[in-house]
């Protein structure tokens, strides 16, 4: 009860603070390029390929892990500079 109460208060608080911000329904369209539509279509393609042929899905997961590593490395370098 108390844990739930704290969580609800937190959600209420954050919801109240940010309620003035507009809600995001779709990703924006930039210079005629509908990012939301193209991304949805692209992910649909990926889902089709990975569903049909599982080794590609595993390779893609490995690719994402690798990209995650480089992202972390990039962030560390940004904040720590040459000490990273």
């Amino acid at each position: 009860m108390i844990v739930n109460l704290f969580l609800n208060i937190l959600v209420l608080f954050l919801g109240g603070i940010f309620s003035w911000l507009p809600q995001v329904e779709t990703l924006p369209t930039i210079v005629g390029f509908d990012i939301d539509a193209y991304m949805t279509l692209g992910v649909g393609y990926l889902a089709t390929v990975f569903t049909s042929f599982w080794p590609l899905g595993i390779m893609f997961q490995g690719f994402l892990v690798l990209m995650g590593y480089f992202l972390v490395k990039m962030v560390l370098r940004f904040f720590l500079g040459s000490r990273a």
Partner: protein
Amino acid sequence: MRKFYIADSYIDNSNMVSNKNIQLLFIALVFFLIPQGQAEAQTPQTKAVYSISSDCRLVYAPGVVENLEFPMPPQTAEIYEYHAEYPNTAPGGSASGYQLIWYDWFGLFFGQETYYSGGHTPTTMYVNVSERQPSPANNGDWWINFKHSDGVGGYVDEYLEYTILGDHSCVPYTNTGTPEVDPTITRIIDFNPQTGTTTQNPVFFDVEAYVAPEDLGTVTGVTITLHNIDQNVLILGALSPSDIWLVDEPITQAGNFYFSTTTTIGEGNYRLEACIERNVFNDSSGILGDWAGGIIGIFSDIDTCVSHQFIVGQPSYIGTISQNLWSDTNDFYNGLSATSSEALAGSCNPLGGSFGIRECIVFMFVPDNNQLQLTMQEAREAFLTRIPWGYFTRTYSILSNPATSSLPVFTTNIQIGPGNNETPPTTALTFDVGDMIAGGGAIVDGIRDPINGKSFRDVFEIMVQGLVALAVLLTIVADVGGTHRHSEVSEKRGNNRVT
């Protein structure tokens, strides 16, 4: 394990004791680059997704069902109507009818010549099993038998059991003829072996679950994990090599889920845990991968688990003690919280008849599973969809959307006649990329070991995972090493320039 409702949701508190999220955190940290340790992972058999609706219609999603048989009723009765469509298999068409008489049993055969020639895989189907003319004689427990091909010339049986009530509505079958839980909510219906049973090898495992359509976005899968208690008493449970994931099946369709397998395991004491995995931020497509999806999932993962304890062959002394301790702990815990929050709230009223300080403390501090889910969803709606982080939420939603898009088809016209002809004949060549990939996947998955029946995927998936994980690991190690060498070289060059 007692089951109960809170606000129309099925709650089981066993997951609170096991602290699944902490286990997941450990597993994600330790194994994020290592193939998952599924000691004897099994691929569930091909199955149809079906359920019985409240108006006694068989709700069916496409699957490889070859025959349907209906049982002999208590006495001659009528089936209201049936309808089946199989447009994707030549000769396409449909079959439907009304007022069929049930003499012995009634069957729809899709793989034999009794009713329709050729092998058919029905894409849509409904069978209204209630009577046109109401008659009490047809009330009671019924079943429909689905026969699936086992891939080696035989059949695997599945049963959908239901009860026709006096008002001619239908509910899932139970021993008492009345549903234990609301049939429309997502839940583990049952799984075996049951608690307290002693069985012999080979052991039959099965699980039946139901996923409500409205939960399809947040329910990510059904799992069954088998713990050998004899070994786990000495090793941390989450990292024990003796844990066997019998089922780890993602859920992509609403309705009934069924899995069964028979396997030989060592004698001793076991605990079997069946879980419905829920995730408020659901990466149901798996595109984000085990790693990214798992990390995000930790923070929004709310599982519903049920456990059974059983013995195979001879129990061990330590195993029996462990089972008894676990049972006592869960009985104690459930004794405190196995009623609704509203009921526990009464224990905090010193003037009430059910006042109890222990129950009151539990009520105040132990979070309610259902409430946690609601809070997570509210949090998402309240601020996670707002600018600017709403763009990340939207991106995540797109990435985790399980919907597929048909791959583009390329067509090109090729001249096939002589070059000096003014109007040379041409032919169109069409490349269906989706069909090619699907065909490749079907061929790979269709290869089976003739001895143990395991598919190509069963055998090689773990190897492919291992190779990919190794390649990623080596790339990272090489990058880290190369970066250091590069730094040392740069440092030396810099020093040389200075001197």
